């Protein structure tokens, strides 16, 4: 049998709401038997419909990585924070810069990070990033000393509310700026 739209919507809504981690299209599809399995298009329509339903609500359905999760709207954080007993941690600029380098130049070694920031990487920062599961080791660079390579994780996207790394528009934009500027560099090489 197959489901009508409303049934399908209810099932998918319940699945996403009761999951502890974002639920992907693939996971949704895997819940149905072969004959009842909705097409990707149908799932997409359901997701859109649920998202539209949330327009008037305090929660929204957000895509994180390749999955979906329900989350509160940021404009209600003031009240929700009062409910939460854990005060959100503050992170230093050094940590955010280190994380940014890993996010945009991954996979990178500690040496790469040091080169870009111009200062040595503190072990404490790396430990925090690893224990928060924002970064993970991704093998070793095949150079003398075989230094460990690091990359960001899905947990990084989840924590910073990102659908993907591309959602930080800065990279594209900055890259383009940079390439334009490096052209100007070559032009400026002429002695004045």
């Amino acid at each position, binding site marked *: 049998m197959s489901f009508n739209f409303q049934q399908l919507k209810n099932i998918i809504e319940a699945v996403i709401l009761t999951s502890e981690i974002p639920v992907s299209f693939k996971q949704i599809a895997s819940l149905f038997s072969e004959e009842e399995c909705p097409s990707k298009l149908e799932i997409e329509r359901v997701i859109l419909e649920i998202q539209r339903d949330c327009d008037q609500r305090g929660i929204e359905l957000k895509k994180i990585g390749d999955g979906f999760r329900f989350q509160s709207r940021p404009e209600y954080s003031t009240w929700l924070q009062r409910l939460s007993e854990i005060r959100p941690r503050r992170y230093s600029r050094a940590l955010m*810069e280190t*994380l940014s380098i890993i996010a945009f130049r991954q996979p990178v070694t500690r040496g790469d990070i040091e080169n870009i920031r111009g*200062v040595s990487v503190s072990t404490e920062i790396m430990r925090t990033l690893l224990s928060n599961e924002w970064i993970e080791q991704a093998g070793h660079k095949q150079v003398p000393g075989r230094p460990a390579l690091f990359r960001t994780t899905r947990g990084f996207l989840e924590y910073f509310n990102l659908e993907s790394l591309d959602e930080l528009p800065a990279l594209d934009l900055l890259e383009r700026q940079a390439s334009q500027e490096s052209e100007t560099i070559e032009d400026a090489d002429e002695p004045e």
Partner: protein
Amino acid sequence: MDDDVIKFRQGDEEKLEDFSIPSDIYIPADALEVITQAFEGPLDLLLYLIRKNKFDVLDIPVAEIAEQYAKYIDLMQKIHLELAGEYLAMAATLAYIKSRLLLPPTPTEDEEEEEVDPRLELAKRLEEYDRIRQVAMLLESRHRVGRDIFIANALGPRVPQQALIEVVELFDLVEAFKNVLRIVELSAPIVMRREPLFVKDRVKTILEKLQTSNQLRFEELFDKSEGRAGLVITFLALLELLNSNKIYAAQASSTSPIHLHLNS
């Protein structure tokens, strides 16, 4: 020199706030500390100086920047700040670039190889660092879980995922087979018969037994030859007696035998 510090503090306040440095460090006595806390390294300090002077990163007047940079380093050293080696290395780099710019271009054997601006590499590093700085600021401004957004999650059925992927040993299989045998046994037809035993009678017998021997071990109460039904009746009678406080049960420790006594 002091003016410089003040100027920096005011001009850079916004930048500092982006990275949530507590505002209470702005008291004048700690002003110098602010400098090192505010800069994330030599590249950051250089970028700050370049911006302050409205210079172009790609066309740095190295002599001027090197001089200003050295001033800051001096200042930091004067107040006995433990200066990271990287700051000094950068001072050396700036001095080197300055000297390269003063020298006439070295004649190259290869005609095609053009003289590269000695500032180019530094400019590239500054740009790369600046890019990362901006990304970090962007990341800093993102909504975060547990601060700006909270996950809406209703607890659904939880299947312990790990239990499903544990390796099954031969022993587990034998155990599982024993269960199958037990199920077969249990599902054998049961012949129902009227039970000639009554709890009331059993209560009496237990009381009599206890009156003669004063104390009894739990196991001694049961007569195995009576079969399952008899054992259950005895147990029920025992519970009845305990409940009505006619007897009490005691044991020396949680693993030692249970003894039954009459309540006087």
